């Protein structure tokens, strides 16, 4: 599945490792929550980067003690209709101060790319290659954003006071 980072299709440096598999030496890994919770101390000594797939039914605040040892956080959309990870993403960015890479995984489709970007995701693992190709179009379809969110796009709540449409596109 193609990975998009900051608008570009890129190679995924991370290897997804199941809980019962051995961690490959020296390679960046993306692991599950159980492994993180049970091996947190051991993982701190690891030389290569560790990323976590945080489940969407677990309060995101619980991730806070582990943030210093994480290089990537992936949040899951089991179905594109299940929007819990949007709140988790915003809380990570706006409440917990996470500035590292934040990846959307699961049933990730083109018509939700913009919502993900606005909620603070900067990596998107698209299900369909054609969707990944259309990333630019999908995230620049709108020039007007009514509400402030995590992204830098100016919202109308403030912008309107300037009374001009010029310069609203970020």
């Amino acid at each position, binding site marked *: 599945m193609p990975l998009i980072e900051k608008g570009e299709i890129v190679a995924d440096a991370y290897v997804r490792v199941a809980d019962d598999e051995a961690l490959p030496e020296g390679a960046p890994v993306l692991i599950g929550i159980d492994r993180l919770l049970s091996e947190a101390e051991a993982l701190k000594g690891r030389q290569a980067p560790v990323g976590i797939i945080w489940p969407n039914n677990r309060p995101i605040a619980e991730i806070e003690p582990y943030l210093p040892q994480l290089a990537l956080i992936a949040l899951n959309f089991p179905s594109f209709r*299940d929007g819990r990870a949007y709140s988790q993403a915003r809380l990570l960015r706006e409440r917990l101060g996470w500035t590292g890479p934040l990846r959307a995984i699961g049933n990730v489709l083109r018509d939700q790319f*913009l919502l993900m970007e606005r909620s603070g995701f900067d990596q998107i693992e698209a299900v369909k290659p054609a969707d990944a190709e259309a990333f630019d179009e999908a995230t620049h379809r709108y020039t007007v954003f009514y509400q402030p969110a995590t992204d830098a796009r100016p919202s109308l709540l403030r912008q309107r006071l300037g009374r001009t449409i010029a310069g609203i596109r970020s």
Partner: protein
Amino acid sequence: MYAYDEFDRAFLAERVAEFRDQVGRRLSGALSEDEFKPLRLMNGVYLQLHAYMLRIAIPYGTLSAAQLRRMAHVARVYDRGYGHFTTRQNIQFNWIKLDELPEAMAALAEVGVHGIQTSGNCIRNVTTDQWAAATPEECDDPRIWAEILRQYSTLHPEFTYLPRKFKIAVTAAGHDRAAIKVHDVGLRLHRNEAGELGFEVLVGGGLGRTPFVGKSIRPFLPARELLSYIEAIMRVYNQYGRRDNIYKARIKILVHEIGAEEFSKAVEAEWAAIRDGALHLTDEAIADIRDRFIYPAFETLENEPAELIEALADPRFATWHRNSVHTHKVPGHAIVTISLKPVGAPPGDATADQMDVVADLAERYAFSEIRVGHEQNLCLPHVAQRDLPALWAALDAAGLATPNVNLVNDIISCPGLDYCALANTRAIPVAQEIAKRFADLDRARGVGRLHINISGCINACGHHHVGHIGILGVEKNGQEFFQITLGGRADEHAQLGTLLGPAVSYEQVPGLVEDVVDTYMELRAGPHELFIDTVARLGVEPFKERVYAAH
């Protein structure tokens, strides 16, 4: 009227372009139906029994004459010449084709009208009092706050895939015409002792399979804190609302399961973290929205002008005037309700020609403004009293002056099995038969205020739980049956109706309703005791005894 600016217009054009692209991808096969369905729903497009249905939002129930005329155009060109006004200040077209939808939407967008978020698991069209800015009862124009919420909730990145749909209603009057207690969030705008504007916040109301009256979680929220507080509610709900069972996914179930107090604590904790953030409404931001509501330049007029007094000698006009004309906050003016319930017609339906007539009359007599109420009637909020006779004559000629507002045949009804893919039974023909039993409006007037609500299934789009008489269609062995409840109400004293007894057949419903009404006429303490008050005083037992003895 709220005047859309260049931002709103740009947004709508972009939304239409996006939907056109999505329809194209669906027709080409790039999107499966499972992928497309939530996208079309978020634009108000359902697939019903006979065709696609397009639901158009009428934000806070306010329409301009030009907008209503454009709806007439869409009804004529893309549909079958009529539309249906719903219980949530929307209008529905029943016969739209998917491949023509982008065109129809583009035509509507030109006048600032759209179907955005009229369906789907997102924040829906925010509703309010159809008498806003016209009634003397209110402390502020509730539409200002509904518009702030509309903007905030439109394509909200975090809250577009909630556990389930989310409905917000606002009232600013003591008498609640917006049914705020049966919404996911109900907002009652009022002033505190210091004279500051704020909201009482209710959560967890709703009808459907598991009806609840909303619970108050905050007596006074300063008005400028509205958005941060709503965001806190939404964030708690988005994370903790149930997603394992579609029937338990509404916020009312979460509030019920953890308790209003726990829910309130979670909201307050979240709110504490964001209340001073980007959603804090400055006076400038509020003033900016407020300034884009354009109010009529009312003339200085006296109440009861000679033209009106003279016309009241005509008993037909006088009857309509007593029934459909209400007190305006400006002397010499009036609020006019236009009944969309002519006896025997489908409740809430209007033909394209009738829409054009109302648009014309609004331009001539009512500052080009039309309102839609949850009772499925229209309203002209600002009419000079001297123009009432001429307005009435024109409405009467178009079949729009039935003087039955709030009477027994002003029936609220969902579309039912005649249109809806979810319904178990029909609702509209039931309403038509009941209305005909009371076709003698003198009799209906003798009965007085009585709201009948009919839903063709447990999803309760006809709000049967809060009808003074509620009628719910259920299927039994392939036959249509109906449960009757009494004593429900949707106003500031909102409560759910009590079941009268066993379900009855389709044919029995009109007679049973007549028996209920006759029983009330015998039992009431006097002509001034309304049906709902008699039921409150006596309970349903005396009704049950009389009605079931007869059937």
